[in-house]
Structure formats: C-alpha cells, structure tokens
C-alpha cells in the first residue's frame, strides 16, 4: 500500500524537479535584465561588436568614397559601451514594466565634423552634394551601430508588447516567473517529506524514492538539453544576424552552465541516495 502511494509521489517529485530546473534556467537567463540599471555587457562582446561595426564602416567607405580610418578610430569601445548600456536599460524596461524603453540615441555632430575634414569627400568642392553625402553617411553609420547593439525591430517589439499588454500584465507575469523556482523547490521538499512520512517517518527508507526522482529529473534535463542543442536554434540566429549571435552566445552559455551544474548536482544526489541505501543492505 505504501508503495502504491510512494511511487506516484516519486513521479510527482521528478516532475516538480524538472519544473524547478527549467524555471531556474529561465530565471538565470532573465535575471540580469531585472536589475534597475540594466545588465553589464562583457568586454569581449563589446570588442566583437566593434569589429562588426568597423567591417561595416569599411563597406560604407567603399560605397561612399570616404576615408574609413578616422571614422573607425572615432567609434571606439567607449561608444559601444555607452550604447550597450542604453540597450540594457531598454531590456530592463521590457522586463520590469512590460513596455519597450526609450529609443537608442547617439550624437552624430562630432562624426559629421570629422567627415567635413575628410579630403577624400570634400575634394570636388560641390558643397551641396558633399553635405547630402555626409548626412547619408552619418545616418548609415548610426543605423549600423544601432543594428549591432540592438539587432531587433524596435517598432515591432513595441507594438507586440502593447498588444500583449492589453491582455496581460507582462511585468506581473515575469515577477511571478521569477518566484516559480523557489516555489517548486519548496514543493520538492514537501514531497520528499511526504515520502519519508509514508515510510514510517524514516528518511533512510525514503532515500531510494528521492534518489530515483533526482536521477529521473537529471535524465529528463539532459534529454531536454540535447534536444535544444540539436534543434539548431543557434544556426537560425547566425543566419539572421551576426550581432545577435554574439549576444545570444553569452545568454546560451549561462543557461547551459546552469543546466550542467543542476544535472551534476542531481546526479550526485541520486548516487548518494541509492548508494546509501545499498550500503544499508536492506530493501524497500
């Protein structure tokens, strides 16, 4: 009779453990954006984005016939850092208020001044054409910068968030989601306690059930990770945008490390529980 109740509880414990793992990974991914001042962007991301911007400037220089080197020197890591900080604030606004943040801004007056000093651009002396060209180049450089740091259609996201906001309070949903892992963990403790209670309040007798649930959850988590990796999400993103690939890689790494740590912890827990019971020499 005890077994008939303990086995479903064991399955339920495994299911709640999987829910805990999945929600914890989700929480780890979105938690940097939950900071009021936005997440810190790593220096390696800044550098890779800068390389992309510089490649784009080279292309623009070939297209419009200006000297690329001064522009490439003008746009440095500090520029990217400042823009990435704005992007972090933008994401924070999405996560905390359920609304898209302010549009990105970047003062182009210094770049325009720099282009006026470019002898390659000003050689023909037709100032009206030169001015038009400089305005176009400045806009193109600005757009390239924005596309690298935030490779999303901001207007589309704003519209989507507005539509979603009419139906549900997104910030409440996100806040609720942030609490799910801890609620699931509490439920796990409760279920483990119930199994122990069933086994005449003897935790040693309950260990095989708890160990099996831990091992089962670790296997499911491993299967989910393998499925995600074989789904080919990363190639899809790589095909869509190089800069998003750079940003997504950092998020993906964080999620995969969390999944690996959780899987190792649960497997260790499973081994300890099952070994302990075996050493004990008694069977359920």
């Amino acid at each position, binding site marked *: 009779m005890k077994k008939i109740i303990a086995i479903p509880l064991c399955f339920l414990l495994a299911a709640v453990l999987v829910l805990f793992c999945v929600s914890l990974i989700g929480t780890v991914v979105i938690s940097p954006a939950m900071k009021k001042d936005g997440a810190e962007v790593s220096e390696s991301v800044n550098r890779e984005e800068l390389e992309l911007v510089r490649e784009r400037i080279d292309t623009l220089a070939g297209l419009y016939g200006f000297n690329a080197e001064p522009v490439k020197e003008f746009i440095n890591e500090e520029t990217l850092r400042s823009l990435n900080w704005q992007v972090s604030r933008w994401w924070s606004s999405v996560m905390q208020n359920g609304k898209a943040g302010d549009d990105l801004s970047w003062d182009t007056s210094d770049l325009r001044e720099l282009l006026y000093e470019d002898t390659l651009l000003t050689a023909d002396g037709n100032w009206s054409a030169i001015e038009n060209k400089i305005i176009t180049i400045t806009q193109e450089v600005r757009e390239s910068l924005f596309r690298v740091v935030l490779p999303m259609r901001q207007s589309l996201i704003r519209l989507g968030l507005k539509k979603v906001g009419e139906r549900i309070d997104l910030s409440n949903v996100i806040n609720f989601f942030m609490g799910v892992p801890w609620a699931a963990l509490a439920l796990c403790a409760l279920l483990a306690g119930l199994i122990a209670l069933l086994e005449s309040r003897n935790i040693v007798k309950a260990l095989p059930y708890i160990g099996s649930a831990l091992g*089962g959850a670790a296997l499911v988590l491993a299967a989910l990770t393998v499925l995600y990796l074989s789904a080919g999400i990363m190639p899809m993103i790589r095909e*869509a945008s190089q800069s998003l690939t750079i940003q997504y890689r950092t998020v993906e790494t964080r999620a995969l490390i969390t999944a690996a740590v959780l899987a190792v912890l649960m497997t260790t827990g499973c081994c300890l529980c099952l070994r302990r019971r075996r050493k004990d020499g008694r069977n359920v």
Partner: protein
Amino acid sequence: MSTEAKSRGKGRWVFPLLIALPFLAVITLILIRYGTSLLNMINVLIKTVVTS
C-alpha cells in the same frame, strides 16, 4: 550480503531510468506531433523580429 540482495541492490540503478521514461515518452510524442511546426515558428519569429 547474499547474491540475491546484491542483484536487487544493483537493480536500484535502473529506477531513475524508469522514472524518466514516461517523461521522455511524452517529450518524444510532443516532438513528433509539433516539433517541425514549432521549429518553423521559431525560425519565422527570428526572421521577423531580427534586423540583419
């Protein structure tokens, strides 16, 4: 420990797999039924939202 007890002890290591099997079966069924359309949807979503 008797041989029988030893073999029953070793059998415990199959329990986690038995617990995981129903979950894996459900995941496989969902994948077979919705896998392709789900991936297509993700692909379309990425292409819509992302600027190249």
